[in-house]
């Protein structure tokens, strides 16, 4: 038998094994109890073990099912969207919704390959006004609008 790595399948299997092992370690401090009186750790540990074993089986299979490379990731949209979300988390408690919205939209807008900077800036201001009016003024969500 020759090795024919299926990289996506293998990556998924590795993810399962890692997650299962991590969960198992976290759950190992919990009491297991007995089948009739299960402790807090009984089901989590069992499930974590199943996830780990299942992942290992998938991993072995992935080595023989046919060569397949990992699909290309479009990094620009992925990273810029992630950056926009992170900006929201960092900025909102510090500068409030108005400025945060502008920053998030400016950053997210760059994720598109056909971004137009001036149009994006107008969109950012418009969405900031819209968000404050809709979510804070109309819906009354307790979100700070301006820097405190």
């Amino acid at each position: 038998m020759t090795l024919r790595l299926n990289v996506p399948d293998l990556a998924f299997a590795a993810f399962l094994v890692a997650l299962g092992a991590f969960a198992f370690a976290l759950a190992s401090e919990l009491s297991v109890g007995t089948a009739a009186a299960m402790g807090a750790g009984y089901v989590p540990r069992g499930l974590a073990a199943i996830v780990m074993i299942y992942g290992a089986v998938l991993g072995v299979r992935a080595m023989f099912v046919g060569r397949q490379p990992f699909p290309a990731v479009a990094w620009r949209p992925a990273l810029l969207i992630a950056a926009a979300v992170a900006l929201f988390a960092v900025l909102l408690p510090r500068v409030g919704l108005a400025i945060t919205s502008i920053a998030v939209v400016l950053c997210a807008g760059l994720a598109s390959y056909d971004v137009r900077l001036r149009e994006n800036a107008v969109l950012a201001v418009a969405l900031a006004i819209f968000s404050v009016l809709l979510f804070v003024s109309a819906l009354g969500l307790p979100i700070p609008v301006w820097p405190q």
Partner: protein
Amino acid sequence: MDLIANLATGFAVALTPANIGFCLLGALIGTLVGVLPGIAPITTIAILLPFTFSLPPASSLIMLAGIFYGAQYGGSTTAILVNVPGESSAIVTCLDGHQMAKQGRAGPALAIAAIASFVAGTFATVVIATASAPLTWLALKFNAAEYFSLMVLGLTGAVVLAHGAPEKAVAMVLVGLLLGLVGIDVNTGAPRMTMDIADLGDGIGFVPIAIGLFGIAELAVTLGRPQDRSLLAVKISNLMPSRTEIRQCIPAMIRGTVLGSVLGVLPGGGAALSSFAAYAVEKKWSRTPERFGRGAIEGVAAPEAANNAGAQTSFIPLLTLGIPGNAIMALMVGAMMIQGVQPGPQVMTAQPQLFWGVIASMWLGNLMLIVLNLPMIGLWVSLLRVPYRLMFPAIVLFCCIGTYSVGNTVFDIWVMLLFGAVGVFFYKVGAEPAPFILGFILGPLMEENFRRAMYLSRGDPMVFVERPISALLLAMALGLLVILVLPAVKRKREEVFKE
């Protein structure tokens, strides 16, 4: 005539001015996201969930349900005019609907799609109303063991009917179940797998996970693909289909409705599956199968009827058994629990207003959709001309605000970001997030029933096969799995999903 009395209760709730408003709002938002490719109804429901918390439970569910079936109407508009499915259940509508549009029959295609949806919606409402009472009665006889087995069956169904590789769907269910257990154990009060993070005490937030997996991840993936939106420059002059066309459609509509109603109830079923199956059946039954793919009006009527019927009847397991059959219903469970309503058979008896109100609103919403949508098609079409680059930054922002507003903590934003990244990974390795969400919602419920059943049986696992209903449910789950691995079925299944 319990049914009529019940429906009267329902309409009394659904017809209050506020609820008519929420129903209309939900239906309109649903149509909007259905029309726009790149925003799925599941994402929209996830984003809007937090904003419904302040509403009464009935209003909130009425609106969220409206989004779901409204999207079935909207999706077909884009499919017919642009040849891009506005959402996944409209994929087959592209085949014949767009051909009709190219032949200058866009008007009849749109009209028949709307009419078929309405007919199916009406029928499905009656199905829900009649099927609910016996199912609820049955569910009240359920014990912990039966509930556990029922959930096993539900999750198995979700695996069998998931797109993509079933072995990955199994893994996703398991991961969902595992992550669903994070948080304080209800029985012992011990914090579990929380890494001493106080924010994880109540478990990983459901809204940030759903928005991360379906909203953020989907955006990142969609933006990486080239955008194609060549809108067909059609003048929609005549909406009415000809008499021959109507005659051709009626049997197709009926078959689609019945098939959709049945498939919608199945665990893992729902709108998309129903429309695929209805199209396949219609093509097989037709005396002129060669017309399909070249603008056969039955090829629009049947799947459009089926997806709307399936969308609605997929509420049945949720409303009667408290068990979500697909990912959107899992979101509905989230919505109900946040509202303080524990989904299950007791909802119908304890809160008849809520139960029947939601059902009655479905018919009402369908009526609004057909009355409003046909005249408003021009408006929806003009929305299609808005470029995606102007829409997605707004979606990113709304995802953030929505997630933040659940608990007013930025911790949830980081969770959403994490699951956005995980979602992109899942997408790249070909693992569907829908079974994950189902597992995540059912995890704690399953564990609770498993523990209770085992406690009652003094640790004897045979309890699950000794009780007849439980054994039957498990046997059905096993049967589904066996069917799945049979080579003939496997091939057929791949064929169906390829179409």
